């Protein structure tokens, strides 16, 4: 929608789509300069931190999974890590490997969803993947097949794809049968090849010429690409434990958003997610993913936010390859979970959700009941950086007609795969020209 005349123009679109959740965005332009941008999240708050108080810590993985149906495993993994940190439980390497396999399933499912159904239609001028399928059904089917393989991994390890039931503090209720895990190898080999085809496909898209300036924050893996564990590192030298990081992140409640805005040390904006993980961990990618990145023309760091789709595709290759490695090396953990003795304490857990760093902190009493909870999802941490991106993208695109500029601004938000259900837990777009 366009309002106004002369140097005062208003473009308003209600309902930013192809994101998970509800919010709006607005760009104000005065005399050819972007004056103000705001990503507004009006997804109704669900008060998870409050409803967790008085619940058993053992319930945290199942309850927090309900924050997000797209990345429930991320919530389960961060919740387990935080509770285990609080009570001093260390899980064995077989449990860790199985958790990583489950997490690979979620990365494959979530990245395939975002690349094919939510993000690629923007680059190809389609309203959605249904329209895209009319032009290139094979591509969309490839994406759906990839997604299905991710779900298959989650079903095999976690029992089901949305809100898996097999995860518990300490490990799993039951270790999957080796024959069922071995049966994943065939689909994962095909998925890895489909992921490689995905990298070639998206690398051929046209990308607007925009470079962001980012403070990247990601876990740093211990010899492997980060997922279920690691220290929190940044592009400007941060290297701390999950607990140390949680101490330094300050969240601010602003009127326009039911997601809290996170800043490092109370002042610095930062970006988590694929661009950050890649910049800080490209050397830890499996060989096949590293080669795919090089063939796609990605340097060691990617700062064009529109190219995040290429990085996400490289991570899709990595997740398939990593899942395949874990499947071939699978040894059922016995027992399937480490014993947990409840005691009072405070613990923090940070893991890499597909769309970025997710940390939980819980305080527990000596009966294992939660006395305090803090959950900081990726989109809360990325929100300020997404707004900075919007400003850059809108400024660079001012010559575009209203409808194209609006679409590009929507795309600037989708570049970061925001999960607004997580963060406040929708978006409508307003561009105001004055």
């Amino acid at each position: 929608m366009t309002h106004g005349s002369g140097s005062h123009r208003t473009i308003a679109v209600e309902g930013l789509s192809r994101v998970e959740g509800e919010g709006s965005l607005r760009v104000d332009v005065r005399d050819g300069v972007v004056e103000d941008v705001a990503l507004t999240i009006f997804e109704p708050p669900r008060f998870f931190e409050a409803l967790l108080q008085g619940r058993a810590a053992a319930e945290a993985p199942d309850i927090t999974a309900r924050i997000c149906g797209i990345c429930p495993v991320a919530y389960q993994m961060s919740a387990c890590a935080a509770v285990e940190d609080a009570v001093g439980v260390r899980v064995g390497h077989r449990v860790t490997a199985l958790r990583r396999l489950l997490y690979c399933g979620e990365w494959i499912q979530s990245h395939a969803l975002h690349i094919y159904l939510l993000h690629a239609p923007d680059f190809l001028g389609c309203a959605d993947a249904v329209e895209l399928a009319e032009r290139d059904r094979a591509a969309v089917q490839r994406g759906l097949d990839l997604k299905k393989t991710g779900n298959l991994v989650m079903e095999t390890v976690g029992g089901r794809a949305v809100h898996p039931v097999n995860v518990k503090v300490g490990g799993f209720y039951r270790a999957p049968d080796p024959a069922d895990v071995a049966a994943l190898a065939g689909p994962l080999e095909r998925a890895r090849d489909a992921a490689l085809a995905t990298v070639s496909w998206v690398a051929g898209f046209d990308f607007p010429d925009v470079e962001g300036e980012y403070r990247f924050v990601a876990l740093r893996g211990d010899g492997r690409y980060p997922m279920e564990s690691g220290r929190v590192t940044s592009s400007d030298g941060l290297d701390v434990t999950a607990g140390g990081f949680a101490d330094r992140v300050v969240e601010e409640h602003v009127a326009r958003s039911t997601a809290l805005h996170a800043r490092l040390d109370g002042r610095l904006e930062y970006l988590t997610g694929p661009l950050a993980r890649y910049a800080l961990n490209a050397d830890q990618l499996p060989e096949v993913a590293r080669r795919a990145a090089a063939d796609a023309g990605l340097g060691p760091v990617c700062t064009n936010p529109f190219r995040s789709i290429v990085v996400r595709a490289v991570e899709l290759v990595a997740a398939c390859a990593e899942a395949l490695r874990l499947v071939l090396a699978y040894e059922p953990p016995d027992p399937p979970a480490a014993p947990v003795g409840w005691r009072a304490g405070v613990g923090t857990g940070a893991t890499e959700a597909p769309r970025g760093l997710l940390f939980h902190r819980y305080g527990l009493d000596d009966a294992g009941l939660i006395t305090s909870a803090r959950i900081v999802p990726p989109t809360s941490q990325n929100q300020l950086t997404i707004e900075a991106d919007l400003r850059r993208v809108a400024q660079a695109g001012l010559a575009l007609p209203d409808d194209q500029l609006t679409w590009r601004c929507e795309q600037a938000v989708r570049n970061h795969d925001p999960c607004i259900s997580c963060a406040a837990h929708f978006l409508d777009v307003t561009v105001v020209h004055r």
Partner: protein
Amino acid sequence: MTDERPTVAVWKFASCDGCQLTLLDCEDEFLAIAGAVRFAHFPEVSRASVDGPYDLSIVEGSITTEEDARRIREVRTSSRRLITVGACATAGGIQALRNSAADGAYAGAVYAHPEYLSSLGTSTPIAAHVAVDLELQGCPISAGQLLEVITAELAGRRPVLPSHSVCQECKAAGTVCLPVSRGTACLGPVTRAGCGGLCPSLDRGCFGCFGPSVGANPRALTEHLLEEGTTRAEAARLFATFNVGNPVFGDQAAALSAPERQGGQP
């Protein structure tokens, strides 16, 4: 040529997106569905949106704000048939735990400025606000049941959905009964079928994510749980999760916590 396919709209209220995702998780059927119907409004998937009226609206999520209470009435007015999917839409979801808390206690615990929020003190199912043609339970819903419901809606017939409990699914699958063999706390006897007896097959007691089955007797189950060593507090928590807003589970949870909360329940 006019498009004579039935129009479908998908709406989200307070929820996690998982039940809409279940539609996209029908990877083998999704393109066929998208051919058979016209997704006229489905923001998670498309930036194109067509105004109503719609032949079928699929609603996810619960009502937690005045604005959403207004919006669902609009959705109802513009929909010939309206079905609700998932524990949030059919019972209020996990966020309905706030219904029993003191006013403002929840917002104040999470947000520094509760005055910026326009949130109701309650999370209520869609059927508390408008007439609903069919409710599909589950947290999340079953993809198979969702396909059955959509197919039945398009064919103009009643969907075939189980009203029995998870217990029968375990028997059909040959899963050993955990409460009987090991004394595990399990809500299978009072929980609606749909998952295939998933948790017990993984050596875990059912935690009731599909909500109550038809004719469920949670009181009798509670007596059994308490006899087997589950504490009152544990049993209360077991009934007070994603379907706490369904009175069959919610009243049982309230009865179990009443002595400790000294009559704090509504």
